[in-house]
């Protein structure tokens, strides 16, 4: 193995102990780069080695890893990626969540591949990074500011504008350790899962502010990198599977999922679009062109994905907001019965500014709306507030109560599972969550069994495998019957690892919708390694197994890998009416365990699996 690390790495990990205001750098070794890559690969290793079981999510000794990867900052589309890894507040287990924007590029140009935060500051601080100047600075002037206000305030304080400065903050929700607080940056990019923002707030870290650095990165084969990146860009534009993503990002999801019964409507109480709602106003083209809009691309990205838009009507007419992703349209909209695109778009940005996960918020508010309609939660409990289906203003009132932990908002700030358990009674049966404590992505998974299984068995506070991408490359069929439990389990297990590989590169998953072979071509050109598709699969499965081992050590057992009663219920209408995931659950989980080589009784990866993946050193720790 080479004795020098590839020039596409900045070469150092930035370590920050907030308790003692101690800042130092840890050099990478060539072996670390090759075996951990970056992102979740690096983060999983740090969690396993530095966060023992007694260090819970709110212990100062918990680590908050904010990592890039070997491709961040390079001239390929979507290379501003941030991966956050920590022990999260919802599951009290591992977290793997991404945001894009410019974090990855700006951090690497400053000379660092990742930031690892530990300890708890005696007073609120923000981390300032400008090349070799790294300081914890007083953040008292930033307290009480939302995500956009925090970025604006720091831009003014530091006299920087635009992409000269990347600010990632957990907003007011993080200050109050809301269990589903997120980390938000660059106006609209959110690492949202498993309460990573609560961990940031627990450390009394208001923000990380990175001035675009002045250092260079060097790739081993610039021509090879350029050609491979161009080929990926070409495929994103012209391949049938990605053209719509290139043009409209995730907007086409609303209409498509509604036809599959997978658009979550009113807290899973129906899958039928309400009368009077014209779905032609919900096509991607309508959602984009119904507003004045402009592109808001991430680092080096040519996709027409991220946009900002101007509200065209209503009480907030003229306000500039972030164009919702599909999950914004569902979480801030359909899940709560709100079908007015202008209202949804406005509420979605309030959620980003408040800094909570939009999916969890949608399930939470939809649950409150249903419970108030049924009389399970009273107007008095909500401090006199009436929260009816589709009322975005009332939803925002609850949002502001939640992020400040005011009144009933203090209960809701615990997330869907805990809030529903506190309220109890019939209300508890209406709540959508996993028994681990997290919640699904923004779909009705009763029509997407793959994703329900992935959510429940995932080790990162959300899905592990994600929707299949180029799955035939991994020996999987191009399509399956989505209600065949065996086929579903084999697909989810068989594609496991690809997403972990992508989440270690410092790129966006929407610009890596190509073959693993092509991604390996880019990685090899950047690093000078011969990195093959098989290497990528092994790497991804190794990282997934390490995250799983961490969770087992945290006490997350297979008994918790189940949907709540409502989450696993049978749709009463719509295209998936009558499909009963619960009846097939045990069989599906068994097949999944068999496919991935884990023990269904304990959840542990079997010794043979660990040894095959190069994790033999974990065998004694897990199996004695």
């Amino acid at each position: 193995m080479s004795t020098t690390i590839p020039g596409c790495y900045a070469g150092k990990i930035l370590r920050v102990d907030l308790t003692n205001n101690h800042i130092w750098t840890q050099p990478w070794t060539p072996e670390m780069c090759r075996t951990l890559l970056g992102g979740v690969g690096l983060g999983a290793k740090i969690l396993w080695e530095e966060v023992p079981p007694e260090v819970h999510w709110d212990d100062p000794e918990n680590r908050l890893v904010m990592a890039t990867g070997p491709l961040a900052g390079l001239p390929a589309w979507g290379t501003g990626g941030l991966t956050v890894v920590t022990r999260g507040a919802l599951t009290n287990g591992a977290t793997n969540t991404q945001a894009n924007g410019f974090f990855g590029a700006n951090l690497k140009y400053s000379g660092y591949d990742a930031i690892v935060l530990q300890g708890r500051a005696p007073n609120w601080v923000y981390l300032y990074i400008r090349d070799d100047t790294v300081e914890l600075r007083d953040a008292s002037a930033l307290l009480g500011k939302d995500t956009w206000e925090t970025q604006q305030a720091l831009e003014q304080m530091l006299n920087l504008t635009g992409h000269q400065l990347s600010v990632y903050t957990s907003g007011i929700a993080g200050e109050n350790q809301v269990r589903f607080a997120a980390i938000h940056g660059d106006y609209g990019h959110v690492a949202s899962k498993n309460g990573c923002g609560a961990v940031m707030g627990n450390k009394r870290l208001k923000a990380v502010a990175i001035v675009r650095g002045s250092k260079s990165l060097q790739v081993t084969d610039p021509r090879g990198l350029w050609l491979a990146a161009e080929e990926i860009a070409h495929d994103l534009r012209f391949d049938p599977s990605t053209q719509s993503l290139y043009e409209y990002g995730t907007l086409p999801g609303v209409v498509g999922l509604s036809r599959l019964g997978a658009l979550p409507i009113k807290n899973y109480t129906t899958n039928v679009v309400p009368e009077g709602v014209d779905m032609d106003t919900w096509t991607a083209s309508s959602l984009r062109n119904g507003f004045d809009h402009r592109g808001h691309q991430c680092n080096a990205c040519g996709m027409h994905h991220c946009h900002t838009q101007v509200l065209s009507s209503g009480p907030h007419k003229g306000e500039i907001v972030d164009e919702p992703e599909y999950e914004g349209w569902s979480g801030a909209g359909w899940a709560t019965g709100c079908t007015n695109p202008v209202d949804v778009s406005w509420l979605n940005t309030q959620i980003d500014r408040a800094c909570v996960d939009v999916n969890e918020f949608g399930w939470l508010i939809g649950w409150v709306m249903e419970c108030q309609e049924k009389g399970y939660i009273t107007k008095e409990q909500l401090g006199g507030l009436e929260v009816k289906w589709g009322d975005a203003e009332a939803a925002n009132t609850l949002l502001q109560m939640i992020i400040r932990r005011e009144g009933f908002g203090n209960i809701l700030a615990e997330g869907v599972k805990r809030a529903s358990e506190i309220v109890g009674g019939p209300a508890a049966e209406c709540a959508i969550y996993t028994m681990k404590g997290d919640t699904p992505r923004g779909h009705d998974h009763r029509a997407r069994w793959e994703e329900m299984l992935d959510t429940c068995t995932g080790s990162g506070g959300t899905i592990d495998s994600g929707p299949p991408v180029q799955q035939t490359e991994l020996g999987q069929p191009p399509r399956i019957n989505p209600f065949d439990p065996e086929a579903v389990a084999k697909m989810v297990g068989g594609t496991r690892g690809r997403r972990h590989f992508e989440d270690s590169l410092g790129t966006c998953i929407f610009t890596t919708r190509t073959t693993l072979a092509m991604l390996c071509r880019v990685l090899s050109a950047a690093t000078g390694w011969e990195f093959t598709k098989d290497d990528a699969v092994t790497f991804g499965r190794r990282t997934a197994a390490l995250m799983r081992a961490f969770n087992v050590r945290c006490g997350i057992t297979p008994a918790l890998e189940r949907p709540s009663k409502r989450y696993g219920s049978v749709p009463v209408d719509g295209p998936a009416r009558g499909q009963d995931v619960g009846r097939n659950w045990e069989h599906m989980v068994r097949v999944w365990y068999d496919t991935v080589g884990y023990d269904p009784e304990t959840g542990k990866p079997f010794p043979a699996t660990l040894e095959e993946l190069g994790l033999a050193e974990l065998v004694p720790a897990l199996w004695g």
Partner: protein
Amino acid sequence: MATPDVPSATAAGQVEIEIVAWITKFVGGDGSTRKVYHEPLKDGDTVRKVLRRLSGRFPQLHKALWAPDTGDLAEHIEVLVNDAVLDLTHTLESPLQTGDRLALIGQYLGG
């Protein structure tokens, strides 16, 4: 074989094929709303045969709909028959009847 942009009544001896949103790009549309085709049924027509006949008229749809190596459906487009995903009530080889409704919608991409 009229091609109105909105659904209309299906005449006897026909099935309806609705092309939804983005997939209309592959049949000369703008990628939004819908296009609806009414396809005459022939003896022995199955889901596969009807879709093949339609895609035979639209090379871009053909490329997106079928896997070139196997001739089976590729992963890019979801097929519904009478609002149910393929394999629930119909397979590619299932016979079609007058008034059956097919729909082609884009693959879910995440996010």
